[in-house]
């Protein structure tokens, strides 16, 4: 018998779905995500990637930090916490938000689900309890960590709606993007939201622990040419870059864990200025953001298409070939669906604008021999990949 106080001997904890994942894993390629054992690759990266883009990928979302925020002051608390105007948020809806520290630097991003009149769930990339408690001073609000208490699955890809219908989730076709609703699966209630981190059609399922495995089994029991696969973090990294989604802590430093001055970023600097609605009322960081906006933008986390097909990896970005170094690539992927090298890069602006002529210089290996390459980069504002089918309600059936 394992003693409660010996939990520290276990390096990584498992979610409700770990047993199922382990039985599917052919690679034993595991990673830690917020202390949970999750697959990088379950079986084959390309299979998992194409499941998202042309089939149905299932990913364990339990390690996502989840907080339940309730109370008469919950709405006011959230309004003061996040930069976005939540006026349109109502029960049954979800909003993508960021929050900043006093200096107007981004701490993290996440989604806020309104579950009831005074009942919200906030999902975040990183642990936020200390920040939420600091922000709760003066509000009538309770904050509860429910990361482990709510096993969750992401079910993403063009066939995901059909798969979930086949699995028995009635009414899922009526969910519009950013809707959240309680439905029934395998005879038990499950909270379903039409949200995701893939840029494709997709849903997230939030279970009560005792019904989690039945939900998993119902999905994987679906027969037919739906191309259902469990997915790991590596495929997620590819699709989220294609979708132009940024990852705090990886693409830029999260404000409250940044040590060096100037290494943290404002919303404008990570391309999320559209999430700041300064007229809505007071929120933490509002004045600092407005003050920063009086000066030209200093740098921008930019979406780059890098010419050629050589793997980019780590790279510096230059204004002009052999020109001044102006930035660095934070993440890259080869996009099979676009047949292009994609990157997110932190680039210094010149008088508030990105330099016109951007080049990446990177090293790559061919048969164990290193080469240096220059490749022209094209910056763009729109996500790299935005399929039409992702926004349709009801989604196209398969």
């Amino acid at each position, binding site marked *: 018998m394992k003693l409660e106080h010996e939990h520290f001997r276990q390096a990584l904890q498992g979610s409700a779905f770990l047993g199922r994942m382990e039985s599917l894993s052919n690679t034993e390629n595991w990673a830690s995500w917020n202390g949970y054992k999750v697959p990088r690759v379950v079986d084959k990266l390309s299979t998992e990637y194409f499941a998202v883009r042309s089939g149905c990928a299932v990913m364990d979302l339990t390690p996502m930090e989840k907080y339940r925020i309730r109370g008469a002051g919950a709405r006011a608390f959230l309004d003061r916490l996040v930069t976005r105007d939540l006026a349109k948020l109502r029960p049954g809806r979800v909003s993508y938000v960021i929050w900043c*520290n*006093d200096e107007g630097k981004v701490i993290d991003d996440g989604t806020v689900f309104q579950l009831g009149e005074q009942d919200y769930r906030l999902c975040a990339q990183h642990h936020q309890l200390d*920040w939420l408690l600091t922000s709760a*001073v*003066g*509000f009538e609000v309770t904050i509860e960590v429910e990361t482990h208490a709510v096993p969750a699955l992401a079910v993403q890809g063009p066939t995901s709606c059909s798969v979930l219908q086949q699995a028995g989730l009635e009414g899922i076709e009526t969910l519009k993007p950013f809707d959240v609703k309680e439905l029934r699966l395998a005879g038990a209630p499950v909270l379903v939201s039409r949200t995701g981190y893939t840029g494709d059609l997709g849903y997230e399922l939030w279970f009560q622990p005792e019904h989690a495995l039945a939900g998993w089994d119902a999905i994987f029991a679906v027969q037919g040419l739906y191309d259902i696969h469990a997915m790991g973090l590596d495929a997620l990294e590819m699709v989220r870059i294609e979708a132009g989604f940024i990852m705090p802590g990886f693409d830029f430093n999260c404000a409250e864990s940044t040590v060096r001055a100037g290494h943290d970023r404002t919303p404008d600097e990570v391309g999320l200025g559209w999430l700041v609605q300064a007229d809505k009322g007071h929120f*933490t960081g*509002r*004045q600092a953001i407005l003050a920063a906006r009086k000066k030209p933008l200093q740098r921008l986390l930019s979406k780059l298409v890098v010419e050629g097909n050589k793997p980019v990896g780590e790279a510096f970005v230059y204004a002009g070939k052999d020109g001044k170094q102006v930035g660095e690539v934070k993440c890259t992927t080869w996009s099979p669906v676009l047949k292009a090298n994609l990157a997110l890069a932190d680039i210094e602006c010149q008088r508030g604008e990105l330099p016109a002529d951007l080049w990446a210089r990177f090293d790559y290996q061919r048969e164990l021999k290193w080469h240096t390459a220059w490749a022209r980069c094209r910056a763009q504002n729109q996500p790299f990949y935005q399929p039409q089918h992702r926004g349709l309600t009801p989604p196209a059936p398969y």
Partner: protein
Amino acid sequence: MTDAIVIGAGHNGLVCATLLARAGHSVVLLEAAEEVGGMARGLAFGDGYRAPTAPFAYPLDPDLSRQLDLAAHGYQAGTPVATVALAADGRHLTLHEDRLEGVDIPAEDQAAWPAFRQQADDFLEALAPLFGRPPPRLKDFSSADRNTLMKLAWKIRFGLGRERMYEFLRLLAMNIYDVLDDGFTDPRLKGALAADAVLGCQMGPRTPGTVMSWLQRRFPARHGALSAVRTGAGNLSDALLAAAQAAGVQVRQGQPVQQITVDRSQVTGVVLADGETLSSGCVISALDPRATFGCLVGAPALDAQFAQRARQIRGEGVVAQLHLGLRERPAFAGLDADQHGQRLLFAPDARYVERSFNGSKYGEAAAEPVLEIALPSMHETELAPAGHHVMSVNISAMPYSLKGGWDAHKAALQEQLLDQLEGLAPGLREQVVAAEFLSPVDIEARTGAVRGHWHHGELTLHQSFMMRPLYGAAQYQTPVAGLYLCSAGAHPGGGVHGLPGKLAAQRVLATGGAA
């Protein structure tokens, strides 16, 4: 719509309001109590007795006195006093500015004392650019800030000279206990100076930084001697009130403020307890910054980290007050009749002071506290019925958060104190006609000083100068545009010198806050 609203008519609030009115602004001054004066006012007790809240103080900033024409408004400076370090055996020692007086004073202490005092004054001269002016910002500083820093650096390096600069830098963060031990041998002298360094703060003489807190308290000594504060005719509060009214300030007493209203980080006015709303784009708070931010503005209108830091301002009141109405003048053993009007300090040695402080860390009241005793009726006979006297005692190490609560312990503590006083002034118990014991909780209730702290926040290095009361709200301005601070919680801190009020008013005018 008024140009400016000042909240709290303590001496700093009165000073600030008057200066703004004199600069041509319409000013409303709101005071929760029926009487103005805050912690500088007198309090009636018993049948016909009146006692000061702060019995001794260095005088008001002389420039301010002149500027406000306080003499014309009836202000009379208090009587200068010396500190008598009481000894249990009656062999007391008196500290005059230039010499020590008493029996059995070691010759080396007698010789070292003027030099020690001179050194302190030299250090204060070096720090003068910091005390008398707004503290400089260290980030994004203005030309005025640069000027202050350059003056400071010049005075430390060249004003003090090489040797004394090293000594200054060595002593600055030290504890007073070690410094006194190095310089003196007489326990009475060391006890009195150690008590002076920590009185009003939750520190012991062995707490680092107590040399600095001693210097900070002594700073206004540049302008005049420590004096018995006048409570009756000629008192400062009435004179300031008269000056304020003459300047056109609309003073409204008995008007507690419920809320400072803020719209997206811009102050819009105040709401009074009775629901009345006053509009102004400029509000200056003379309340404890913790009350200003925590209660009146409220965390939701502030950024999260700032609100949290404002909550964490250190400042736990540790001084209780005992007011006694006496049928005749008490007789302290070993004191002449006229010496009874001096400042009587019972802190027989520095270890005694440290030991009395120890328990306060754990919510325990000192069994043997430091006592600062005043007989204000020696200077103002009107404070007591004919022939009677008033005694006011500040008692150290009486924590606000007393274990078990004040209600449970107050009566017993009062008896303990009367016993202690009886030992110093035999027959005192028999003379008591009226007694009033004010715990830090009572002081908070009467004056609004949060947790009963005299200085609206501890005088520690991390809460001084450009960090007073906290960074983000130094220089009297706050993250809320149009909201200013002018209490002892702002630089340069507590005392009755009026500098926070004066410097805050200057800041409001310089930044066009009341325009």
